[in-house]
């Protein structure tokens, strides 16, 4: 046991081997370094090379990024991932808040409902995707119901746009419970008096929601907006499962991360080009976060 050289004037604990802090931190640092930070740096480096899975690459400058600009698949992927953010985020900011208001009051059985609404969060996205593939099937339950009420059958999984919208609906369905819990925690901090004062002033439920609840949980809404927009832009599994590995009719439903996966893996994978695609994913992800946080600051001033 190494003893401290100087008498400890502070209350800090000093009795430790000089190496032991590193020993404690080593497993974590090693894993994070080798499997997160090193791949991050190597993605940046590879994006300037023509590396393939089995071939070491050479430096090619900005060739990959120039190729991106002329790659139709890239634009389709970027379009779909962007649409995904626009479609999913408003729903995931608003609906879980309404749901949280619904399960907020401690009425009998409410803990059961809260837990039940959370179930889709616990399930694997693969399970959720396959459940909805079956529900939205040409001959599935949703179409059976639609036919029974006289609407007729809808090709949810065969039309390019309906497919994307269905996938978005599944993402929202799976995310509802998660964000509901976040909102519940935030709502617990809204002072009851505010609601009462508004009620005394004759404000209706909708008015109270807009002028009391929303301002009180606004910072949480921004948080949910940031979390869900980043997640939505990186969407992979829902679309992969519902539209298939090739991304639906003529690949028109391919998302950016699906394109990364398709381009960069396997024995013939174009690692360099997929890395350039990944760099776009980074840049947009960071931009989205900054955008949402900045909107928050502007609102506040």
């Amino acid at each position, binding site marked *: 046991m190494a003893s401290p050289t100087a008498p400890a004037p502070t209350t800090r604990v000093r009795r430790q081997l000089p190496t032991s802090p590193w020993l404690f931190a080593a497993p*974590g640092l090693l*894993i994070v370094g080798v499997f997160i930070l090193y791949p991050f740096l190597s993605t940046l480096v590879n994006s300037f090379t023509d590396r393939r899975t089995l071939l070491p690459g050479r430096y090619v400058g900005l060739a990959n990024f120039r190729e991106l600009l002329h790659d139709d698949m890239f634009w389709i992927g970027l379009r779909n991932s962007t649409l995904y953010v626009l479609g999913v985020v408003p729903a995931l900011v608003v609906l879980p808040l309404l749901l949280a208001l619904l399960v907020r009051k401690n009425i009998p059985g409410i803990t059961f409902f809260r837990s039940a609404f959370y179930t889709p969060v616990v399930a*694997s996205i693969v399970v959720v995707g396959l459940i909805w593939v*079956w529900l939205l099937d040409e001959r599935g339950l949703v179409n059976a*119901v639609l036919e029974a009420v006289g609407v007729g059958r809808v090709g949810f999984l065969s039309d390019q746009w309906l497919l994307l919208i269905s996938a978005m609906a599944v993402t929202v369905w799976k995310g509802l419970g998660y964000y509901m819990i976040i909102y519940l925690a935030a709502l617990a901090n809204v002072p009851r008096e505010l609601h009462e004062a508004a009620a005394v002033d004759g404000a209706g439920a909708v008015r109270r929601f807009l002028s009391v609840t929303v301002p009180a949980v606004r910072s949480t809404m921004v948080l949910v907006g940031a979390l869900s927009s980043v997640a939505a832009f990186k969407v992979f*599994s829902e679309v992969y499962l519902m539209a298939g590995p090739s991304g639906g009719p003529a690949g028109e439903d391919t998302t950016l991360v699906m394109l990364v*996966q398709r381009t*960069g893996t396997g024995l013939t994978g174009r690692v360099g080009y997929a890395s350039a695609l990944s760099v776009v994913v980074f840049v947009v992800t960071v931009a989205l976060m900054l955008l949402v946080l900045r909107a928050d600051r502007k609102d506040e001033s």
Partner: protein
Amino acid sequence: MSVPDRVRPAPAANRPPRVTDEHGRRVRGWELALRYLLLLAVLALTVGPFLWQLSTSLKGPTEDIYSSPPGFLPAHPTLHNYERVAQTVPVWDYALNSLKVASANVVTNCAGSALAGYALARLRYRGRRAATLVFVLAMLVPVEGIIIAQFTTMRELGLNNTLIGVLLPGCVGAMNVLLMRNAFLNLPYEIEEAAYVDGADVWQRFLRIALPSVKGTLAVVAIFAFMGAWDDFLWPLIVLSDPSRFTLTIGLNYLHGTFANDERLVAAGTVIAVAPLIALFACLQRYFFRGVGEGAVKG
């Protein structure tokens, strides 16, 4: 469904005589009825699909699963589809693979993040800030953006197409390290100081004093590590290529892609994949909810 105000004095069922909200105020009858109606509607929407899947998996080969109007309950419930799915793909081997990866992920995440979190929160050394920064940066890296490089790294290590390869990248999550760090920081320092004065070394202080005080956070880490590994799809899809080594999620995708026409089989497979987690959730709900709160603050 609701308890109208006027019947209250009567010896009504076993219900509490007044239903109050979280502030002790009474909730009106019609409002309560409307609430329960909405709750049941959302319940049907969130849990209904799982029940439909379960029902489909129990329907026999002669029963029409496409009927309109749909038959919600199987006419002759049978476990036959579960036998058939195991004959079609080695679904129990897949489940075992998933269980191995998920259990190992729990052990490595609990041990790795508790150790590193303790080092960040309690131990003094040069480079502590740098070490903290490493974990913060790692947490911010979007995994989807580095999977290709993770794949090539795994190939260089010769670990692609192995369960170890599935496990390694997430086996000590940066966010878990930071969660544990915060948990240790929130402990009062005096006890550890007292232990130090009594001559306890760093391992004794860690194992006997600090660690038992953060059991709650450790449970959260364990649960999310298990769920994360059990549910993960993209990474195992990339790193595993040999069908005999598939995990359950990849196996289901394979089953769906290859035998897409038999909805009863796919339904049985999904039930096998989701049942353990729903059971886990039912038993340990509060840790699941706590994890959402802590994860969101960090994320």
